[in-house]
């Protein structure tokens, strides 16, 4: 694996499967009374968050702490960043403090890429603008594999997502989750279809490794996975669609649409949800929904990524390969 995780495109199929398999090993920890491993003792992980994202930050924080790393939370509010320090100067400061890994969430696309040029440690992209969010894609892939390909050593170990049909619905244009998922899920062998109004798809989407549809209804019956994207408040008034109600009518996942999915199909959402806009409450709370599971899997998957990127010592319980 590379030293950094900035784009899902950085991961080969073997890398991605290794992360999922490692996460599977780590998942067994969650059932133990003591959840902590000594693997990253003495290592420092900095959470550098320029955007409010409590869920992603605590997920990374929990992951690092369960591996016994020292965690420093550095948020734009209340730090020198708010006083106008440049990303480069912040990077040099973290470097001087000896960060082994920097987890960065930033509003500008490419911020993680830039940071990686200025620090020695590993950089983990926790979402950069409208570019990518690769650990979200990994946790989504992990969730899909567990649900549809089984868990544990007897189940999905070593497997990709070959042949699974994943439909990603909504604001692809501005979605870092969609970009990372298209790349990662196709690397793992899934057939990805993007379903969205044309205004919310990049013009050049034809060059992506996926299919495109403007009609959600025609995709439902053949989908193993439907992944709903959040509609950001600022899109609702910028002529991307006529009204929230029309968007919901055409691209929202309600109970009637859910009923047309195959029996085994699952419904995903990276959160936070707009209930009643892209997803109806009865769908979000149904047995098909993996939304809560995704949160739990997020911690496990991020542990796997930190473990592999920081080249931790051999995993003591089960001996995950280096």
């Amino acid at each position, binding site marked *: 694996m590379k030293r950094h995780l900035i784009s899902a495109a950085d991961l080969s199929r073997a890398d991605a499967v290794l992360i999922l398999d490692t996460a599977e090993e780590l998942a067994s920890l969650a059932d133990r009374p003591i959840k902590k491993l000594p693997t990253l003792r003495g290592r420092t992980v900095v959470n550098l968050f320029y955007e409010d994202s409590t869920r992603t930050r605590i997920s990374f924080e929990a992951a690092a702490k369960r591996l016994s790393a020292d965690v420093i939370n550095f948020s734009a509010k209340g730090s020198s960043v708010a006083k106008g320090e*440049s*990303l*480069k100067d912040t990077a040099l400061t973290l470097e001087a403090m000896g960060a082994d890994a920097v987890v960065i969430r*930033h*509003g*500008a*696309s*490419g*911020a993680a*890429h*830039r940071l990686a040029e200025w620090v020695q440690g590993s950089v983990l992209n926790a979402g*950069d*603008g*409208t*570019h*990518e969010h690769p650990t979200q894609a990994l946790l989504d892939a992990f969730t899909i594999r567990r649900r549809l390909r089984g868990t544990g050593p007897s189940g999905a170990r070593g497997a990709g997502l070959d042949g699974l049909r994943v439909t990603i619905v909504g604001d692809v244009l501005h979605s*870092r989750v969609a*970009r990372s998922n298209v790349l990662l899920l196709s690397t793992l062998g899934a057939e990805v279809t993007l379903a969205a109004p044309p205004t919310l798809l*990049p*013009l*050049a*989407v034809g*060059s*992506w490794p996926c299919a495109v549809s403007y009609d959600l209804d025609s995709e439902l019956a053949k989908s193993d996975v439907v992944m709903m994207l959040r509609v950001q408040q600022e899109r609702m008034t910028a002529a991307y669609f006529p009204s929230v109600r029309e968007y919901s009518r055409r691209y929202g996942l309600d109970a009637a649409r859910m009923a047309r999915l195959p029996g085994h199909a699952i419904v995903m959402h990276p959160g936070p949800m707009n209930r009643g806009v892209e997803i109806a409450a009865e769908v979000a709370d149904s047995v098909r929904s993996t939304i809560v599971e995704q949160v739990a899997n997020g911690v496990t998957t991020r542990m796997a990524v930190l473990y592999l990127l920081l080249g931790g010592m051999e995993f003591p319980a089960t001996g995950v390969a280096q």
Partner: protein
Amino acid sequence: MTDHDSWLIKGVTIPGGGEQGREEQTSILLTGESVAAVGPDLDHPGARILDAGGLIALPGLVDLHTHLREPGREDAETVETGTAAAALGGYTAVHAMANTDPVADTAGVVEQVWRLGRAAGHCDVQPVGAVTVGLAGARLAELGTMADSAARVRLFSDDGRCVSDPLLMRRALEYVKAFDGVIAQHAQDPRLTEGAQLNEGEMSARLGLAGWPAVAEEAIIARDCLLAAHVSSALHVCHVSTAGSAEIIRWAKSKGWPVTAEVTPHHLLLTDELAAGYDPVFKVNPPLRTKADVTELRRALADGTIDCVATDHAPHPVEAKETEWAEAAFGMTGLETALRVVHRAMVDTGLLDWAGVADRMSVRPARIGRLTGHGTPLTAGAPGHLTLYDPAAPAEAVTPAGASKSRNTPFAGMELPGRVVATFLRGVPTVLDGKLA
């Protein structure tokens, strides 16, 4: 007696010079401020000799589009440093854009810039006046007063911003007819490019950067061509960057409309794929486009649809570029590399010969800028502005450190052919042996 005011440049080739276009080694004698004679067997006792064997002589280059940053951003560039960079690039005249602080929208500011240029002495500085007060796009600046000032402004531009209001654009075009003025438009529909960061296409989609669509440039150019035709006044299109823009300008010219256009060196060589590493040194407005655009821009420059090369030299301090892409300033330096880039993009590709380069980088830009005394073929009696260039110099990697105060060249590390050996302004060398004289 030595005649320190005279130079005899021996063994030089003048592209397009000579009888029936025969290009032979010849000599150029500069005395006083002018070319005294051109011929193979010149002698002038006491003149300083410059052995120019293997070099070509071009009429001094003229840039229609330079940001000298003074007044206001002397941390990025000054008239002194910018014109030194220009001389090193072979330029004898530059047009200084109006987006300074304060904006060059009054006679006072344009005269200040003009005087700073005279004092620096590296090349002539012709100020460009703003079209609208403060570049705000709301009301016309005092165009006539700037035209009548000591700076004799003829080219007006809100460059950096588009005069997007069609009525204001029409009035500006119409008004400057009274003094043979030209409106140089930065063609960018503001609504179609809100927050735009990179050419809208495969790269912007992949990198998650807000797209700057070609149509935002082309729609304004089409509108402005129609306006220029309607009021019969001169439109100049700045930094044309798309294949579609070239097509529209070709169409306008085929109608005989008074439209001219420029292309930058970077748009002739670089594509948006360079943004892959998010290094803002490749962030520029209009943005780098695709390979197909580059191909069409070269063709349009070769066939004369695009009249000239203009650098859009846009210096920025380090901190404006050492940042996230979206935070970074738009712009690239270009004066010191322009001729070498054109060499590679146009001459090495066989699209333009050196006489064509002289036309596109000196003769035509001087004509568009109404700059008398520049862009004159090198014959007896011509002003003593010339550039000596070694087209056979082996390709060398570009170093960002030059005379410009800023280092934001997108060509750093790139191997480019050729070398500017000397530049003469009014018969006096500003550059000798590739260094400031």
